[in-house]
């Protein structure tokens, strides 16, 4: 698939790759903060909070797959698994923990 000849026959548009990565990154950052609000308000602690985040991120991936990529992930992403399904999940986790602890403290203190 990532053969050099394959790339020569069907070249990849670099600006589109960047645009897609930027879009995914924006969605992930926004939704990660949102999940932090939910997890903090629900009063989740320790592992359940992280499991909630991973499950909600999977939901967002499915939404992107259905609404933005229209079911054709390989048309918009170089490697659909790494860029769409797992893309930016772990970099959004810091924002999640930030709002999680904030809202846990605000609501339950």
């Amino acid at each position, binding site marked *: 698939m990532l053969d050099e000849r394959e790339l020569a026959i069907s070249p990849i548009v670099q600006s*589109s790759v960047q645009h897609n990565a930027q*879009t995914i990154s924006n969605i992930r950052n926004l939704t990660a903060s949102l999940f932090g*609000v939910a997890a903090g308000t629900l009063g989740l602690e320790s592992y359940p909070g992280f499991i909630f985040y991973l499950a909600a991120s999977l939901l967002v991936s499915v939404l992107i797959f259905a609404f*933005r990529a229209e079911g054709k992930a390989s048309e918009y992403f*170089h490697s659909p698994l790494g860029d769409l399904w797992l893309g930016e999940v772990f970099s959004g986790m810091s924002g999640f923990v930030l709002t999680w602890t904030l809202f846990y403290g605000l609501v339950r203190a």
Partner: protein
Amino acid sequence: MTLISTSLNSLGLVLLTHAVYSAHEHSLLPTTATLPLDITIELLTAVLLLCIGIVLASPDLKPINWSVWGGKLSREEHKAAVKAGDVTERDPYVQLDIRRGFLDIRGKRQEFADWDIMTGLPSYRTGY
């Protein structure tokens, strides 16, 4: 699509604010019961609505394959022309579609010869 995403986001934000406020009020009660089910459901509904709204509000993805991308741009050329200013997003095959024709060199030469005779100026050909 913008209307749908905006209304989903607004509704989700209202529900989220209400749910968080209710949870806060509930935490002030002397009972130490867990969060009531209706607040939990409201919160999760708000999160779901906001997720859908955020995804729908995000800009469209662009195809990474050059041929798919170029073909899409070619088909939407008139739309892209209206939305001017985005220089990088032009049809990459426009220079193949709009080309000058071949130069009619004999016609040009004849034109020049006629003009040359008509003006009657002493030209480089007087020696012949």
